[in-house]
């Protein structure tokens, strides 16, 4: 007869202690590489930027660069906001319009692919992603070419006297928003597609069996079940859109500068690092508060349900 060791036998306790310790450490081991990555390339630079945003330049004589000194200069934030509140507001407005446009255009597309594309689903998804094989900047430059005053679209319409002499789209807010919307569309469609695709068809059938009209099926069943996709699509569209500066730089005009352009300018040309850092933090703060509020409104489900 095999002799059973009692649970409190020292050998068993030691072995169990090892597994329990291993179990307890496993999650940390798994999160380790990703966590370290985030720490080194996200937390550390963030902290450096936070410090930088509170520094002030050392006064200089002549052309000698004096560098910066840490002074807890919180006034930088107030100054950054007063000086550039217009660009903040403009960025949020453009991003809101872009997100709405993407949702209106993207939802029917995602719905159609999920419910009606049949075996060709992957083909359509591939077609949707095809433009992404070309660089972001090149795509925006292509828009510049298409929408140019003497370009194929506007020049032809002007020749046909549909548009007046001197009409233009380039350099207007419309060009910038259209460019961002075009570049973000796939980020809206993909999560929407995933969440619509996941909807249990039997639930839809049940609704029909209970004499729901097509519209009712959509508003009472499909749409509510696709909300996680809308939330994810919103995050992936709105957040990058607020910080975008490429479209405003390539397609915009003198009065379409977005906050991303200001930050880029302050870092690279103006070399006012405290101002640039403060602007970045204000932008991040606005986005965080906005997203938390939005999550509250859409319900208090856990974040993983949304993605």
């Amino acid at each position, binding site marked *: 007869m095999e002799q059973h060791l009692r649970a409190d036998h020292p050998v068993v306790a030691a072995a169990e202690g090892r597994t329990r310790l291993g179990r307890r450490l496993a999650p940390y081991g798994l999160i380790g590489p990703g966590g370290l990555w985030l720490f080194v390339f996200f937390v550390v630079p963030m902290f450096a930027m936070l410090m930088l945003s509170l520094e002030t330049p050392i006064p200089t004589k*002549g052309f000698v660069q004096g560098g910066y000194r840490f002074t807890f200069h919180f006034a930088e934030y107030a100054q950054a906001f007063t000086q550039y509140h*217009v660009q903040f507001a403009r960025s949020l407005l453009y991003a809101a319009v872009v997100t709405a446009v993407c949702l209106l255009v993207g939802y029917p597309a995602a719905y159609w692919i999920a419910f009606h594309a049949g075996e060709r689903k992957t083909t359509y998804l591939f077609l949707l992603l095809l433009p992404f094989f070309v660089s972001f900047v090149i795509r925006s430059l292509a828009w510049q070419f298409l929408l140019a005053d003497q370009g194929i679209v506007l020049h032809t319409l002007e020749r046909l006297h549909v548009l007046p002499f001197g009409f233009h789209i380039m350099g207007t807010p419309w060009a910038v928003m259209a460019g961002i919307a075009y570049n973000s569309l796939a980020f809206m469609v993909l999560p929407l597609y995933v969440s619509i695709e996941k909807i249990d068809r039997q639930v839809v059938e049940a609704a029909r069996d209970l004499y729901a009209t097509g519209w009712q099926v959509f508003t009472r069943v499909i749409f509510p079940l696709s909300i996680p996709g809308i939330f994810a699509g919103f995050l992936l569209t709105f957040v990058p859109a607020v910080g975008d500066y490429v479209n405003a730089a390539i397609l915009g005009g003198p009065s379409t500068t977005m906050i991303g352009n200001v930050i880029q300018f302050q870092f690279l040309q103006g070399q006012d690092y405290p101002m640039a850092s403060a602007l970045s933090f204000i932008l991040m703060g606005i986005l965080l508060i906005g997203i938390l509020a939005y999550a509250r409104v859409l319900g208090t489900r856990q974040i993983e349900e949304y993605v």
Partner: protein
Amino acid sequence: MKTTTTGGSSSGAGAVGSPEWWDKQTLHHVLNFANWPYYIDTSKGQHPSLTLFTKQSGIKVNYRPVINDNAAFFATIQPSLQAGKPTGWDLMVITNGPQLSQLIANGWLIPLDHRRLPNFAKYASTLVRNPNYDPGNKYTVTWQSGFTGIAYRPEAVRALGREPTSVADLWDERLKGHVGMMSDNTELGSVGLLKIGVDPATSTPSDWRRAATELRKQKEMGLVRNYYDQSYINALENGDTWITQAWSGDIFQANESGYPQLKFLVPTEGVMVWHDNLMIPLHAANPLDALTYMNFVYQPKIAAMLADYIWYVTPVPAAEAYVEKMPGGKVVASSPLVFPDKEMDSKAHNYYTFKGQQDLNEWNSIFEPIIQS
């Protein structure tokens, strides 16, 4: 290789750049030359003028077109200069502006020995002699110059009902939404100053503020299509802008490459003239080789080889006769954009020379918000 005494900072006789110091320098038959891309004659991957220089002087040239931007290039040499170490360059080309002022103010350039630059004395145009940013050409001689004026398309003539003539036309409401301005705030500020009738070279901060008001008005009226970097030329070529601030050489090149309808205008208020300058950084290993090259390019024949390729303004007017005889050189030689006539010369304004960082910051704080909003 013989070690040189560059880098000594003792004053008086024997100081770096003094005649005694120059007398002690010898040729090392090497020259490390930093320039901008497409800024020297090029044929089949070779630079004929450099080949000729090497043949005549025995000095081998390490030619590197590494400068794309004054500020960015300056950032690469500043740490060495600040640490009192060689930059690795014997000769470099930098535009008159804040970086050049900083190099001079910090004593980071070797004063030139004009006894060894007889060709400069003999052939340099009045435009490049004794410039306000470097009195007496103590540290620099010009490589090429250019004008910032106005360029326009036939649509501008159609909208105005006449040819544009002045800086004030950039403020004409009939050109609404089709005016191109430059995003470089020195260029933008200077044209604003010309608009209010002030010579930028002698302007004051109160003038700057008045010019900024005028520029803001132009923007608020919806006249400005955009503030452009080098891409202004594309905007003009594809018709987004009808009238724009422009650099002379670009328009000449556009005319020669499929856009003959573009015209360059010297406005009644004047043009801005800028100079890209040759200079020798402190601690350069081969200063005499660099000085020899400076003298070499001021020969009319060599200046002609450069002018016929670069199409900006050559500092050697006597090159015209040589350019004329080159294949296709007639067009180049007859263009006032390459060989400015008296009218062009008399209308050329200099930029304001910044006295220090504070001065520069003030200028930036006045003109930058116009572009960044």
